[in-house]
């Protein structure tokens, strides 16, 4: 039963999956860290982008990656609007974290059910012309679509990292995050910076959702399960940490991949939830923060 090839195969697939978890979780971590908003609807927006990609492919033969040209700006602007009209009214409440959770819970319910009305609960799978193709390295099989989704994720995370570290707006986001009052004293407009960060986070949710859809079949209620992956990424990696999210994604992917080789499928989620509970109890600030 202990087969080296199987183990290496699980590690490779796990890491590919992990990169996708990381992109999917990074924006979730960003909004939580910067503006203390836990966006429960993050995964639902990922599913929305996955549907845009799916229908683009099925109806017009557009490659899912190309569909991002449409879905990312749409989600970015949706993010600006949501921040302006839904998040800003609650920023003055005493406990914004909890208020934002309840608010975005509502948003997620709305989104899930609108998608159910529009596209039913049938499970969809993105099947492209290259879905069945794979690269063989010795005994290891790497699916082309997984590799592609992984590359999108790496590019996405790199783009967010560069934005936060190299651009003025990005630096303003980070300053706000570290010290909101100090940043305001420097003339940074907090609401504007938060709006942009929120839009960016939703766009990253879209990219992550499409990448997820390369690996998993999805339907509107699937966002509940995907949400748990998001919490795992953020809590393992530490709230608001980009590098932490990236590493956490890889670790979670690795665990999922490896446990898939040894446990029956239905126990993997129990294992992941259990892991999340244990980490919350022993180190709620994340594994990568001292």
């Amino acid at each position, binding site marked *: 039963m202990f087969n080296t090839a199987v183990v290496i195969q699980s590690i490779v697939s796990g890491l590919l999956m992990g990169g996708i978890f990381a992109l999917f979780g990074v924006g979730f971590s960003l909004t939580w860290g910067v503006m203390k908003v836990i966006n429960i609807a993050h995964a639902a927006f990922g599913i929305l982008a996955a549907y845009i990609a799916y229908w683009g492919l099925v109806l017009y033969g557009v490659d899912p990656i190309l569909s991002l040209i449409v879905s990312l700006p749409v989600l970015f602007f949706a993010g600006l609007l949501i921040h302006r009209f839904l998040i800003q009214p609650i920023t003055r409440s005493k406990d914004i974290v*909890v208020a934002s959770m309840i*608010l975005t819970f509502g948003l997620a*319910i709305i989104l899930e059910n609108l998608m159910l009305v529009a596209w039913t609960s049938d499970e969809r799978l993105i099947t492209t012309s290259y879905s069945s193709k794979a690269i063989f390295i010795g005994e290891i099989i790497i699916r082309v679509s997984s590799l592609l989704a992984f590359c999108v994720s790496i590019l996405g995370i790199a783009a967010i990292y560069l934005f936060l570290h190299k651009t003025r707006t990005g630096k303003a986001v980070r300053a706000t995050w570290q010290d909101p009052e100090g940043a305001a004293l420097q003339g940074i407009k907090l609401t504007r910076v938060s709006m942009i960060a929120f839009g960016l986070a939703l766009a990253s949710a879209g990219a992550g959702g499409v990448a997820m859809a390369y690996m998993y079949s999805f339907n509107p209620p699937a966002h509940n399960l995907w949400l748990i992956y998001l919490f795992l990424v953020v809590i393992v990696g530490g709230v608001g940490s980009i590098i932490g999210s990236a590493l956490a994604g890889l670790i979670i992917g690795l665990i999922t991949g490896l446990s898939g080789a040894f446990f029956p499928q239905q126990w993997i989620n129990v294992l992941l939830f259990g892991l999340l509970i244990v980490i919350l109890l022993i180190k709620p600030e994340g594994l990568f923060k001292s």
Partner: protein
Amino acid sequence: MGKKSSFFLIGLALLAIFPLIRPPAYFLSFLFKMFLFIILAESWTLIGGFAGYLSFGHVAFFGIGAYTSSVLFQHFSLSPFIGALPAGGVAALVALIIGYPCLRLKGPYFAVITLCFAFVVDLIVKNWAFLGGSEGIHLKLVQMDIQSSRSIFYEIFLGLVAVTLLYVRRVQHSKFGMGLASIREDEEVAQTLTINTAAVKIKAFIMSAFFPGVAGGIYAYYISYIHPDIVFDINISILIVLMAVFGGGKSWAGPLLGAALLTVVNELLSLFVRPEIARVIYGAMFMGVIIFMPDGMVAFFSRRRRA
């Protein structure tokens, strides 16, 4: 006896004699559902409203209760009407075990861990053959005509509503309740005031699990077939939070009002629109409440009256 208490008693008495006029079973079922949500929202508010620890996994205690009484009925022929008490006990015990570590977490972390807890319990039950796995458990039906059995379940739940309400109201005005309120306002200050916050929180959590456990134990017998997707449905957790927040979680009257009102809204919606649209409206209400009346309806309107 104050005016409020007499209103309470008269309302209770009227509801108690309601089955005697032999109304259509539909109304009994509808009120039964309302009672269920009042019990759940009231007990949730002990920890979620009074102490400000938002539990998003409260459905787990309801489900644990349902499974406990079902197993006792199936394997030991213990009537669920009696089995409901050990069902509440098991739910309370689970709350003690998970509450001890989890209540050290604050704010969103507590919300997340309770949500995960509910998912884990659901997944474990689904994969546990002894509990029927994903097949669920069929219970023997009550040997009675539907009108009488509905009336009996109705009266039992009405009694449980009364007990829960009285308990939650008493807690609110007790030293225990003050302790919870001080934890909600500022836990560190509460500690410096020599309030044993850990003990107060766990007591509230245990009691807030006990009533849903009892209700779940009876509910299992009522629907006579239980399945993880029914009794661990995460939407119930969300609904409980919504109802309590909608009415206002800081006082006993809030969840009562929220649960009663939202059950009526839910029933009306289910008559006129399809379930998905009903849930869209629910989601919008969630958002409306948190934006326009973050302290709930009771606080919103009593502030209006004073202003």
